[in-house]
């Protein structure tokens, strides 16, 4: 159904994803899980056990560490023996597309910018930045419209939840006058 339109925008269809290559990402992630297990286990020794406590705060962490280590090793072994992740597709996912890392970086960047700007600009403008930047990263037709919509949605949330229902969302310098009305 969508295949023709896809072929038109850059011939990504022809590049089939190599299946037999060493799954570097999968291995790294499994190793990270293993590292988390090691961290959890070594962390057990830093937990202070009060004197006289029989079943103390370390019992459960030991169990969790063992579970993490065991299952991470099992995943590693399985991956090395050729087992590959089975991922589910969703309605909006293009099964032929490759991972678009720059879009991912932009979205994470938008989230970070949002959290840094909440106290500086106020919640609604920071929300507009998040909405606009994400929509732009995902290819919104008119990027300025995305910021306008974001500001609109942000203001509605701010007025309904901050103004009417009393959640303390910061209004920021530009909208302080609006905040004083509630």
């Amino acid at each position, binding site marked *: 159904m969508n295949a023709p339109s896809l072929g038109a925008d850059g011939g990504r269809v022809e590049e089939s994803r190599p299946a037999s290559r060493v799954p570097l990402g999968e291995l790294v992630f499994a190793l990270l899980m293993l590292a988390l297990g090691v961290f959890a286990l070594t962390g057990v020794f830093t937990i202070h056990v009060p004197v006289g406590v029989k*079943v103390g705060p370390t019992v459960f962490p030991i169990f969790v560490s063992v*579970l993490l280590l065991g299952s991470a090793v099992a*995943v590693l072994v399985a991956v090395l023996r050729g087992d590959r992740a089975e991922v589910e597709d969703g*309605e909006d*996912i293009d099964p032929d*597309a490759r991972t678009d890392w720059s879009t*991912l970086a932009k*979205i994470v960047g938008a989230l970070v910018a949002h959290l840094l700007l909440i106290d500086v600009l106020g919640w609604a403008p920071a929300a507009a930045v*998040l909405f606009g930047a994400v929509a732009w990263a995902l290819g919104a037709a008119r990027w300025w419209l995305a910021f306008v919509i974001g500001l609109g949605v942000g203001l509605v949330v701010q007025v309904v939840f901050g103004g009417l229902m009393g*959640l303390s969302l910061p209004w920021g310098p530009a909208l302080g006058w609006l905040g004083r009305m509630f």
Partner: protein
Amino acid sequence: MDSWTLLLEGFATAMQPQYLLFAFFGVLVGTAVGVLPGIGPAMTVALLLPLTYTLDPTAALITFAGIYYGGMYGGSTTSILLNTPGESASIVTAIEGNKMAKLGRGAAALATAAIGSFVAGTIATIGLTLLAPVLAQFAVNLGPADYVALIVIAFVTVGALIGSSIPRGMTSLGVGLFLGLVGTDTLTAQQRYTLGLLPLSDGIDIVLVAVGLFAVGETLYIAARLRHGGVDVIPVSGGWRNWMTRDDWKRSWKPWLRGTAIGFPIGTIPAGGADVATFLSYAAERKLSRRKDQFGRGAIEGVAGPEAANNAAAAGVLVPLLTLGLPTTATAAIILVAFQAYGIQPGPQLFQNQPALVWALVASLYIGNVILIVLNLPLVGMWVKLLQIPRPYLYAGILLFAAFGAYALNFAIVDVLILTIIGVLGYFMRRYGYPVAPLVVGMILGPMGEEYLRKALQLSQGDLTTLVTQPFAATAYGVLALLVVGGLWLRRRQQRYEQALTESIAVPIKTDSEI
């Protein structure tokens, strides 16, 4: 007082105009968000959690009941009307509805799904009403070791049966348990894994983890491979009054009832959730049908049965959640979070200590079901509009609400940072085939499990055999073994079945596109 009187009192509460309004609002919002593509029921519930921050407990739970049923139902509209075949094959039932829509029978598919959901939801809620008090009565006598057994059952079944690979599921569970450990130990006030950081000493809020994994992680996953270009929604024609013909009704009512009979029991046991129920119902309908050739080409039985099973399972899941405090699906886990946010701990004591609240909730489930069917048939046009939202705006909006929910938790910026980090973790888990539901369940049940484990071991003076020598606990472990073996067998069958089905209908899909 018997539960009948209590239920009537519950209705009296839930029928109050303001609560009725909350139920209506919950169903409307739940369905609307559930209809949005890419948003499953767990994400719907997680995203809408902040809406209830400012409400009183009864209003919040009634709203949530509506959101839960609405979100469960909303997804079927998406799969019936959104023209993305092939990918939905993981949910075997989406195929029939989608095929029907393409044959111009989308209205009938939507109607049989809606009415089937109503029938199944109502019967299953009756089942819940009858079963829950009995189970709660029984569960009151369970000791800490018995609870450890129940929680282990939840861990193992969720870790092993959700997702496609057992080691990955167990790893995900382990990460969840670990995240649940971070913070201050409640019994001895010792810090664990806080790295000396102040924001971590109170622990990581489960809401951040749930929203981070389901909303942010999922959005990142979709964003990385977004389908660009126009949205292809199959048009629905005809008024909703004459949607189902007499023949449709004749072919639908038995599957509805069979779906309910399959879905409710499966929902109550931790066997992998609604997915298994819908698959079993589909397989049963196909087997029983005299028109097997229609399956895979738009058989109404293949929509009616699984859709009913799905909703019946959704009600069934509430039985262990309310009576034992055990969530068996990711969605149930997030509902448990909502309960805990109000200081309400589901479990046998809940029926004794707060009967008014529980029965108002149960009553609102009945009401929610009625609202659902009243809303859904006439509002289909609106849902279709929602499906057409341009994707960049849709996902920007999801992230906006996720960030709002995180920030509104404590009005702390560090929460948004944690949300982002969890979201990135969720992306990689999704990418490498780790199911996220075990993580959420592990993080919620971990602290509970630890408490019971330590209580049990303290009672036995550190003797580990106490965990398996109680009659109930011993039986529970036996049942666990059966559940895991049975569940794995079922899943293997399901995978083969879906593969065979995808292959058998792959040909018609191709010819479709060539026309």
